[in-house]
């Protein structure tokens, strides 16, 4: 069966420090991968998605970047964190099949980032 792992679960970082959140998926190949952010009272915001290694689509211009160095690995990074980067970050995947496809997203457990 497929599983998704996301870490760290909790992170407290000072303003201006770097960030790296990692997500890996097991039990599937060539998944579509997603990073979402959930800020207090603001719902889910799509940050990045990827349909393959090295292919990243950015939805919101901001202080963050994403990379996909391996098929089942998705990394969210920042060189210098801002206070506004605080939030709950969720990684998700779906089957990356071609053609008519209606598959759902599967979410990780999330990473709580507090920037002080």
């Amino acid at each position, binding site marked *: 069966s497929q599983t998704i792992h*996301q870490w760290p679960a909790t992170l407290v970082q000072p303003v201006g420090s770097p960030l790296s959140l990692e997500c890996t998926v097991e039990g599937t190949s060539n998944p*579509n991968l*997603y990073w979402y952010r959930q800020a207090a009272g603001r*719902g*889910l915001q*799509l940050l990045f*998605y990827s*349909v393959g290694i090295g292919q990243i*689509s950015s*939805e919101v211009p901001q202080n963050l970047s994403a990379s996909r160095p391996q098929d089942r690995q998705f990394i969210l990074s920042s060189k210098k964190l801002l206070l506004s980067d605080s939030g*709950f970050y*969720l990684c*998700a995947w779906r089957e990356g099949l071609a*053609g*008519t*496809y*209606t598959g*759902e*997203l*599967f*979410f*990780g*457990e*999330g990473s*709580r980032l507090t920037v002080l």
Partner: protein
Amino acid sequence: AQSVTQLDSHVSVSEGTPVLLRCNYSSSYSPSLFWYVQHPNKGLQLLLKYTSAATLVKGINGFEAEFKKSETSFHLTKPSAHMSDAAEYFCVVVRNNFNKFYFGSGTKLNVKP
């Protein structure tokens, strides 16, 4: 364009009474629709999905939803609320064959003893 509107930000029910969480969508194409549940500080879990088959969809934990194209609605219901249903619920739409999922703003369900 795709969009989702969850009509209530908070819903409060008593344990054992019915639950209704409302969702309207806008889609220029045949969409797939989903309901997810999120407990505090947890990831989102799929409750059910509509993918152009039966319009009445049954999900986990006794939830179901009915796709009504004429009303562009996909409301989530449960006959009898349980304390463990207290959580936040998200309605989601995606255009088939595309990669972007559009989330509603969420409805927080409170279940009173």
